[in-house]
C-alpha cells in the first residue's frame, strides 16, 4: 500500500503548522540524572555550592537538557501536529541543538514544535519512508525568553 503513497493533503497541511505547547520542568533531580547518564564529572551539575562557585544561581542544565514533559497519565504529551501516517515504525534520524540562554533548575519551559518539512523517500533497507523534519522552540515561562531551539529528523517506515 505504501509503495504508491504520495504526500496526502493532510500531510501537506501539517507542514508549518504548530503543535500544542507542552510544558517541560527542569528540576535538580532531572539535571543530576541527565548528567549522571551522560557521564559528566563537573560538579556544577550536581552540587549547588559548586554551581554557585562557578557563577550560577542554581544547578545549570547541561547542553541539550531541556527538562522533562509534565506527565499526566490521562493526557500523554504530544508536541507535534498530527496527521494520518500510514507508517507504524519510527526511527530517530538526528538532532540539532541551538542553546540560546543557560537553563537552570526551577525553570519551566514551554515547547512548541512545528513540522518544517515532510518528504517521501525510497530506502534500500526500509522500503519507502517518510522523513519528518521538525523545529521546537523552548520558551522560559517566567520571563518569556527563548532559551533553546532544536531541530529533529524522524523517519517513519
Amino acid at each position: 500500500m505504501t509503495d504508491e503513497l504520495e504526500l496526502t493533503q493532510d500531510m501537506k497541511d501539517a507542514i508549518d503548522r504548530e503543535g500544542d505547547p507542552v510544558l517541560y520542568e527542569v528540576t535538580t533531580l532531572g539535571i543530576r540524572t541527565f548528567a549522571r547518564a551522560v557521564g559528566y564529572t563537573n560538579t556544577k551539575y550536581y552540587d549547588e555550592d559548586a554551581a554557585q562557585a562557578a557563577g550560577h544561581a542554581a544547578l545549570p542544565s547541561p547542553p541539550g537538557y531541556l527538562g522533562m514533559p509534565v506527565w499526566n497519565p490521562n493526557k500523554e504529551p504530544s508536541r507535534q501536529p498530527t496527521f494520518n501516517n500510514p507508517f507504524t515504525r519510527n526511527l530517530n534520524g538526528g538532532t540539532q541543538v541551538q542553546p540560546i540562554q543557560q537553563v537552570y533548575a526551577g525553570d519551566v519551559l514551554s515547547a512548541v514544535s512545528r513540522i518544517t518539512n515532510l518528504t517521501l523517500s525510497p530506502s534500500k533497507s526500509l522500503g519507502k519512508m517518510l522523513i519528518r523534519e521538525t523545529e521546537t522552540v523552548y520558551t522560559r515561562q517566567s520571563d518569556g525568553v527563548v532559551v533553546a531551539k532544536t531541530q529533529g529528523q524522524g523517519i517513519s517506515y
Partner: protein
Amino acid sequence: MVSAQNWNEVTEGQVFTLTEPMDSQRLVIWAAASGDFYQIHYDDDFAKGNNLPDIIVHGALKGMLVGRLLDEICGDTGKITNFGVSYRGMDPARQDLTVHATVTKKYEENGEHLLDLEVGVKQEDGSTETTPGTATISIPA
C-alpha cells in the same frame, strides 16, 4: 575528561576524544533521564525479538555525549553555539563508544573566538562511525 581549551592554543585538525562504556546500567539511567523507555534499549528478549543482536544504545544518548565532549572543551567560560548529529546506524550495547571532535575551522567573528568541529561517535572497532555531525563553539582566548 577533556580539559577546557584556550582558543589561542587550539589548532585546526586537533582531535578531542572521550571513551565511555555503554553497559545496560548506563542505558537504564539514560531511560530515566530522557523518558525514552522503548524496550529495545534494556530488555534483551525484546531486542532479540525485534531482530537486533543485542540491546542498542539510545540515539539521543550518543548525541548528548557529543554535547558533553563539547562542554568539556568549552570549560566554564566557553559556550556551545550549536551542535547536531545524524543517527546513521545502531550501536549494540556492552561495548565502549568513543566520542570525537575534530577542529575544522578556527576563526573570529563579532568579537567571538570560534571553532567549527566535525563530531561523531565510533564503535569499539575504532572505525564504524554511526553518529556524524557538526558543531560550533566559542571559547576564551
